């Protein structure tokens, strides 16, 4: 919101702030420190300090350039100056604006003595846009005849105001006006508020046959108060200069004296008001009621709305004439020929106004003020001020004033006084709450300065209890904490000391708590992956439906109001995001070597069937944290070619296994699941995939990207990726300190076997069988070689297996090891048809 310091000066004495060069900034700092954040300070004469009025004495063509002219100007002291000018709209005798050497204009232009096509120019003649008066303009500004020469242009144009742009918080609707801001400043400076004298409405008799307009409130508590006033004999015309200046200073356009009066009232008092052309009110009635569905109304901005039955409208008994609190109707608009007007100043239900403004996308200065809550006790003052303005501006006569109260039978009666609730609190409590030692006397002063009524209601003089009644315009003061904030804000937050709170009892132990174990495990996973040369990425949790489907996934969680289709669905898998990141990196990779992409993400994925809040905490959406990994490209960041190589399946397998090995996670199984139909069959190469499982339950997959996807995505290098549900993994990761285990001090013994098996026999199974039937002395089983080709029958493979035996308690004997090895070989043969080569 923009406020003018000169306008404020009419309400509270701040001429000293206007006069001092640093005064405007001081005022801004004062308001900011009280919670009314000033975003910018604009002095109207900023940049115009060196712009003066001059008269054109002579105008010639520039000798070197047809499109330029050379003017001789008199700056008032007959010390003529030559100026080169690009505009042509001036003539000899005109008074124009000269930016002198050294001027730094509002548009950023710095004026220096310069040669233009060989002729020295001693300044620049300015246009309105160059002076910051308009955004665009044609030609230079010609000042009125008889304008004195040699004066500062800022003084001639009365550009001596300072405009503050204020970012108001949602709770301070009372400050959405100059009066409201002035109240704050008056309280802050301890100066009195200057309230303009407004004459009581004088009621004239109705002239020739015009019936008075009757007001009917038919919306119950949704429109509890209405003040109306009829004025006749108005002459609609341009507003006087003072009014234009005020409105234009805060960025409002002047329309005519009547419309300007209502805008002025809104920006001065904070009340949204409306003025109707009374001759266009057909039924002699102003009725406030809920709309019926399907009523049509053309608004002031020429748009037409069709009502839903939810909003409040104003009707004249024949037709709707306004959308209450939001915008008036075009059918009752004040025009150049208007003779009679009807003024409306009313209170409407903030929620209904807000919803209507949203529904029709008509959020206006008026609706904004209703939404935040108007001063329910101030409507009568406001209509009197408005009537006085209209009368003075348009030579009209007040012929009738109406005061409506709600007709629902409930409440009723005198509504001019707000039913504000009082707040009980004590200065002692306030100090304890703030951690301060403010003086009771000062607190009382400050509260009274804010128009709060403070009464003692118990306690003693040392420790009184106060009943505080805030003024009707402070709708935000409801509880003792609000009063504490007023105190803190008025003293200044910088007056609050800094203390470190005591830990009550002993600090809570983190160790072993499920939450911290979970977070530590997630951190551990990230650390392990970063240690293996992978970079963590963060992708948006939403992707387009088609991108998600490309990988064979279905998203069940749709965003109802996405920013774009690209961000329409919450991801059911992290893999589509990783592929996006991969492609992003590939896109700007120009080298001849393949790009090494090694990335991971640890984030939740989303799933839901019936998405609806079924309780205060249930959404129907399941969030599962996953770990996703993608690697591709050279195995080393740097190595000579013969050593470099590109990553393959086993590099990926190692990345995943290493995470769990380092974390000490127990019970993770890896299973080849050839031919099993599942998500893996669309995402992973069927022959280069492992299922990761906890017990029998699959928790994820790792493998090479499916060649079909590889082709579809036009990948130039094979990509290996994995996605694993980390929730079950967390449970299998020890949170306790790892325990010491003794090792065997006796020598180990080894046996190597060359096994001939069918190709589809899984090496993992051979290992597991050896470990199972070699118990308790077969400790480690390694695959040290695989071979296919010469001397090996088609469909068979030779696998080199080493079994390492040891015993914790004694040296092993050859015979014992041989017996054990025999059992293992027998089992291999029985279970897999393996034979020794």
């Amino acid at each position, binding site marked *: 919101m923009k406020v003018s310091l000169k306008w404020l000066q009419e309400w509270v004495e701040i001429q000293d702030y206007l006069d001092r060069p640093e005064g405007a900034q001081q005022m801004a700092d004062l308001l900011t420190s009280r919670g009314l954040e000033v975003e910018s300070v604009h002095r109207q004469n900023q940049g115009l300090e060196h712009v003066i009025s001059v008269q054109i004495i002579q105008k010639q063509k520039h000798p070197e350039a047809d499109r330029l002219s050379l003017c001789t100007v008199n700056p008032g002291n007959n010390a003529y100056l030559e100026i080169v000018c690009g505009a042509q709209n001036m003539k000899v005798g005109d008074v124009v604006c000269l930016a002198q050497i050294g001027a730094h204009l509002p548009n950023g232009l710095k004026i220096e003595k310069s040669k233009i096509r060989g002729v020295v120019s001693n300044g620049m003649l300015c246009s309105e846009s160059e002076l910051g008066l308009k955004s665009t303009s044609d030609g230079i500004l010609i000042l009125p005849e008889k304008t004195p020469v040699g004066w500062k242009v800022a003084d001639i144009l009365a550009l001596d105001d300072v405009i503050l742009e204020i970012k108001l918080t949602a709770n301070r609707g009372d400050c959405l006006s100059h009066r409201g801001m002035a109240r704050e400043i008056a309280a802050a400076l301890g100066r009195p508020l200057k309230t303009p004298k407004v004459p009581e409405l004088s009621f004239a008799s109705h002239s020739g046959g015009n019936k008075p307009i009757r007001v009917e409130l038919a919306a119950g508590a949704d429109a509890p108060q209405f003040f109306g006033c009829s004025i006749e004999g108005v002459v609609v015309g341009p507003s006087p200069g003072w009014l234009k200046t005020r409105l234009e200073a805060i960025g409002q356009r002047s329309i005519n004296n009547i419309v300007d009066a209502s805008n002025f009232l809104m920006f001065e008092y904070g009340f949204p008001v409306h003025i109707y052309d009374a001759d266009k009110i057909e039924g002699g009635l102003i009725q406030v009621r809920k709309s019926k569905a399907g009523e049509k109304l053309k608004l002031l901005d020429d748009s037409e709305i069709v009502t839903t039955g939810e909003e409040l409208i104003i009707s004249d008994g024949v037709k709707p004439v306004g959308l209450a609190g939001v915008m008036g109707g075009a059918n009752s608009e004040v025009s150049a020929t208007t003779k009679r007007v009807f003024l409306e100043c009313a209170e409407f239900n903030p929620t209904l106004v807000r919803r209507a403004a949203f529904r029709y996308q008509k959020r206006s200065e008026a609706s904004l003020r209703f939404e935040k809550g108007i001063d329910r006790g101030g409507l009568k003052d406001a209509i009197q001020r408005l009537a006085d303005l209209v009368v003075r501006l348009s030579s009209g006569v007040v012929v009738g004033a109406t005061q409506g109260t709600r007709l629902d039978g409930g409440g009723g009666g005198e509504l001019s006084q707000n039913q504000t609730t009082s707040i009980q609190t004590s200065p002692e409590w306030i100090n304890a709450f703030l951690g301060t030692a403010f003086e009771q006397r000062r607190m009382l002063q400050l509260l009274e300065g804010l128009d709060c009524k403070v009464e003692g209601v118990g306690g003693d003089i040392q420790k009184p209890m106060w009943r505080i009644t805030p003024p009707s315009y402070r709708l935000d003061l409801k509880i003792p904490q609000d009063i504490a904030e007023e105190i803190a804000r008025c003293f200044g937050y910088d007056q609050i000391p800094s*203390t470190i709170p005591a830990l009550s009892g002993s600090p809570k132990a983190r160790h072993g708590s499920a939450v911290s174990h979970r*977070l530590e495990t997630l951190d551990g996973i990230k650390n392990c992956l970063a240690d293996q040369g992978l970079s963590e990425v963060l992708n948006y949790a939403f992707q387009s439906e088609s991108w998600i489907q490309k990988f064979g996934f279905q998203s069940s969680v749709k965003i109802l109001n996405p920013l774009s289709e690209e961000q329409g669905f919450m991801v059911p898998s992290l893999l589509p995001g990783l592929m996006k990141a991969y492609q992003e990196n590939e896109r700007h990779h120009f080298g001849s070597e393949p790009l090494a992409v090694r990335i991971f993400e640890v984030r939740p994925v989303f799933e839901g069937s019936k998405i609806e809040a079924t309780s205060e905490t249930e959404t129907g959406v399941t969030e599962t944290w996953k770990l996703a990994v993608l690697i591709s490209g050279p195995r080393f960041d740097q190595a000579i070619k013969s050593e470099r190589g590109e990553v393959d399946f086993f590099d990926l397998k190692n990345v995943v296994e290493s995470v769990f090995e380092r974390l000490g996670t127990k019970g993770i199984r890896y299973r080849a699941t050839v031919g099993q139909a599942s998500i893996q069959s669309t995402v992973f190469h069927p022959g280069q995939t492992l299922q990761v499982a906890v017990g029998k339950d699959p928790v994820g997959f790792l493998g090479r990207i499916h060649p079909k996807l590889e082709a579809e995505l036009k990948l130039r290098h094979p990509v290996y990726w994995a996605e694993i549900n980390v929730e079950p993994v967390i449970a299998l990761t020890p949170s306790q300190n790892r325990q010491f285990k003794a090792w065997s001090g006796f020598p180990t013994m080894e046996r190597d076997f060359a096994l001939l098996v069918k190709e589809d026999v899984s090496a993992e199974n051979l290992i597991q069988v050896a470990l199972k039937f070699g118990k308790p002395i077969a400790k480690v089983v390694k695959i040290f070689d695989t071979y296919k080709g010469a001397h090996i029958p088609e469909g068979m493979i030779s696998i080199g297996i080493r079994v390492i035996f040891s015993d914790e308690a004694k040296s092993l004997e050859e015979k014992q090891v041989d017996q054990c090895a025999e059992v293992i070989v027998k089992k291999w043969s029985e279970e897999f048809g393996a034979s020794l080569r």
Partner: protein
Amino acid sequence: MSDIKAQIAEKGTLALGQITAAAELAQLEQIRVSVLGKKGSLSEALKSLGQVPPEERPVLGALANEWKSKIEAALETKKTALEVLAIEASLEKTKLDVTIPSRKPHVGSLHPITTTVRAISKVLGRIGFDVTVGPEIETDFLNFEAVNIPKDHPARDMQDTFFIGPGVVLRSQTSPVQMREMRNQSWPVRILSPGAVYRCDSDATHSPMFHQIEGLWVDRKVSMSDLKGVLDFFAKEMFGTETKIRLRPSYFPFVEPGAEVDVSCMLCGGKNHQCPICKGTGWLEILGAGMVHPRLFELAGYRPDEVTGFAFGMGIERIAMLLHGIPDMRFLFQGDLRFLKQFGVQR
């Protein structure tokens, strides 16, 4: 007897000569066998000891052993010398161009958001805060009503929210975690809740998904000066001991009093009028804070007359950008390795 003596000495001397002359390790072994082996010359000489009278045997035996030791020592010395020579000879063959760049494994990195959350948690963990997290898809109740933003409240304008289903939203702040936590445990509460939040906003300084971290401290007799003390400690630990904080009154529906918190500019300290970070104001707005509104305690099942508390929240992107000099928020979400790898595995 003297015959045998002379024979031993002769053979020994011969062997020593051969050892000195040897040029390869293999020769030494030959010499060792020919002299000291079972059928070696010295051994043969000793075999003839049986023929001498018993009283002379000790003398001759000692002599023979003396020569044996001498020869063994000479063999050992020569062997070492030859080995050294052999190593020296191999050096040239095993010479490398040591200026070839090293074989480098890939160096990974953690996302700046991750490391920033860790840094903040570490600082505040020192004065008693614990980290906890909650879901990103929340009920309208927890996202709004539980933080004192009822339906049709003007404060709903402050946040443009993504909707998922009836009463279900993408959380627009991490505050729902506070209510979940308070409903789950009795006070005292000292928690930090970091995480992703969502608002329909996208430009150079806004991302539709971003991260916040909120702190909540609830206990008997917590005051606003405690809030200031904690924030002051945080700012100094995070940005340097010279850092100052400034609280300005502001409004958030879930706190009363509310404050915007500025920290002094860590780059220029307010001395540079053209400072790219603080734009010459000397201050950076990084936090919102305040005393917990009693309405929240009621909703949590706490008694507002028993406890007070403070809460604060900040955007993690903003802190990460300040700490690392990142000029554009969008870099954080593009997965570009040129960006990500700059931050390494600092944790």
